[in-house]
Structure formats: C-alpha cells, structure tokens
C-alpha cells in the first residue's frame, strides 16, 4: 500500500510532496530481505495495524513564484507491480499570501 502526496502549482508544475510505502519486510535468519515464503522466517511490519489511524505529515518547498497549488493525496494498493488501484483520493487547494 502506497500513500503519495503531490502538488500541482498554478504554473502546471508537478512537485512530489512525499511518499510512504506500507508493507511487511520478510527476513531470513541472517536479516537479509527475502521474497519467497520458504525463505522468510520473520518479518518487520510497516503496515497499518487494524483499528489504528496513522498520521503522516509532509512539508515541501514549491517553486518561487507559486501563488496557489492543488494538493492531491492518494492511497493505492498494488495487486501486482503493473497495476495501481487507487483506494482513496483527497484534493485540497492551497494559496500563498503575498511576500511580506
């Protein structure tokens, strides 16, 4: 599962704000990441646990002269590496006061 936030500025520039991947990392007994079930003997779990709400915050500078931007936040599942399934998308508008 991937959480991604991007900004599209009023000049059309797309700026990545932040990205976070939630998954289990499978490890063998020597602490090496393994992908195959028979090799994995323990996991480190970065996935959201049931009933829990995770809070993430991103801060990112935008290009000089940006007056406003559209912020898109989306969470996607990737059933396979080629297929993105967007579960939820939230869009917010931000604007900037004139420089002091």
């Amino acid at each position, binding site marked *: 599962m991937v959480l991604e936030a991007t900004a599209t500025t009023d000049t059309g520039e797309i700026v990545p*704000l932040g990205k976070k991947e939630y998954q289990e990392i499978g490890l063998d007994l020597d602490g090496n990441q393994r992908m195959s079930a028979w*090799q994995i003997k323990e*996991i480190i779990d970065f996935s959201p646990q049931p009933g829990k709400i995770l809070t*993430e915050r991103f801060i990112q500078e935008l290009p000089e002269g940006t007056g406003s931007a559209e912020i898109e936040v989306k969470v996607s599942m990737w*059933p396979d590496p080629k297929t993105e399934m967007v579960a*939820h998308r939230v869009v917010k508008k931000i604007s900037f006061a004139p420089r*002091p």
Partner: protein
Amino acid sequence: MRWLLLFFLLVPPAAARAEFASLDELVRAYDAESCKACHPTIYEEWTSSYHARSGLNSLGVLREFIEAVERDWQREFRKEDLMRCMDCHAPQLKDASESLVREVARLVVAATDDKDAAGKEAARKSLARLNVNCVSCHNLKAAVEKNLQGAPQPGVYYGPTGKPSPAHGTARSSAITSSPFCGQCHSLYTAADRETAFCTSLYESYQDHYRANGGLESCQDCHMRAKGRGHRMPGRHDLDAVRDGITLEASAVGIRLHPGRWVPAAVVSISLGNRAGHRIPDG
C-alpha cells in the same frame, strides 16, 4: 422424483480418499462443476473468486521453490514439498501419487518457463483445474477440530446449517462460519516437519491486533456477509473491499519559509486509518 433424477444425473464429487496417478482422475474426483446445478449463484460467485484461481496464484514462487529444493536443499522435489504450497492452494493434491506430483511440478515449470507459448498456455490450463473449490472448504478443510469431531467423511458436505440434501450427505459445521476456519490457510504455515513458510500471517494479525483490541467480527462477516459478497470473498484485489478497509483524510496549508527569501511551501497532514480486521496489505 425430480430430486431422484438429479441425484443420478449429477453425482457430486466424492471427496474420495484414494491415490490418483493422473490429473484427470484427481480433478474429476474433486470437481466442483456438478455443484453448479443445485447451487448456481454460489457457483457463479466462486468462479470469480481468487479461490477459483488458486492453482495459478503464486506460480512463479512455486517454480522458484521447486528449483530451490533441488539446488539448496539438495534433494529431489517430492510430495511433502509440493504440499507446503498446495495444502492450501490445491488441497485435493493430498491424494496425488508421487508420479502425479512430479507431473504437477513439470506443469509448473512449463507454465512459467516454456519458450513455446502454446506449451505454456496448455500447462496453465491444466494447473487452472487445481484450486480451492466447494470440496476444499465444505469437506477437506471442514473439520477444524479433527481430534474432537473426527476427520471429514467422504461424500459429506459440511455447511452452516447441515440442511439435508437429496444429492449428497450433509452435516452442520460451526467451524465453517468461524475465523479459525479461514485461519487454516491465511496464516503462518507450519509443515509436518515443523519448518515454517511465511506465506502470510493474516490470521495472526487478526488474533493479536484486531481481536486483542476488542474487534469481534469474523472473516466471513466482512468478506462474505457484508454487501452480499458471498463466495466471491473479495480481498486485496477488489477495489470495493479495499475502500471499505481504508480511510483517508487530509488537510493542507501554504506557508512561506526562509525569512527574507520567503519560499512557498506546502504542508500536508494526513490521517490513514485501517478499518479491517487485520493489517493491510496482507493476504
């Protein structure tokens, strides 16, 4: 009279306890096709489920495993090795002879490696006949408490009601509506030699993080009863099921950083919630 006729026309799979040397014989003994006549809606739901394709799921990993047994474990791939995967992906293979196991292993290699597209497709077609079907859940895996209740009886179909059927034997099973039933496969796998395979620890997540924190719903509540999902049992591959399991809220504000330069910057706060009964993702 109609039922009597049906009985003779549609002999349900016997879930026989024999050893099969050919894939055709094994598939015939455990075929779900004959269930369709009396249970058409359930059958249709099942055909669109991942259970119906479980013989093809993780084919690449199984191919690697066959190679790894010979390369790393330094011995011939045998039935007990195949069943580390197929005890869940195609439990009917428990009745396969060693020669049929070798044939299935050959098909797995052909379905992933065959340079000839037609050969690859033919192997995939054969393997697609192996799956988690009606017999798998309503007979083979129906007894969660084997020591208490005994092994499932051949030809008897275990369900939530045990309502009599003129077509086959029936018995009520409280296991089949319970989470431990699904946990037989959707959990850390421990083989007969006690070696584990970390296919998933979904059921452990359910027990240790959902039930431990007050959750009371069962696997069947969300994946079958909710929204009439039935025997499709949708999960991580289904957008609606995924949407039901995840919440997303966000707020954003524009600020200026670096006094004097006054660079515009975006600040985003996000709340990502997991409403499912287990970690997301898992399978």
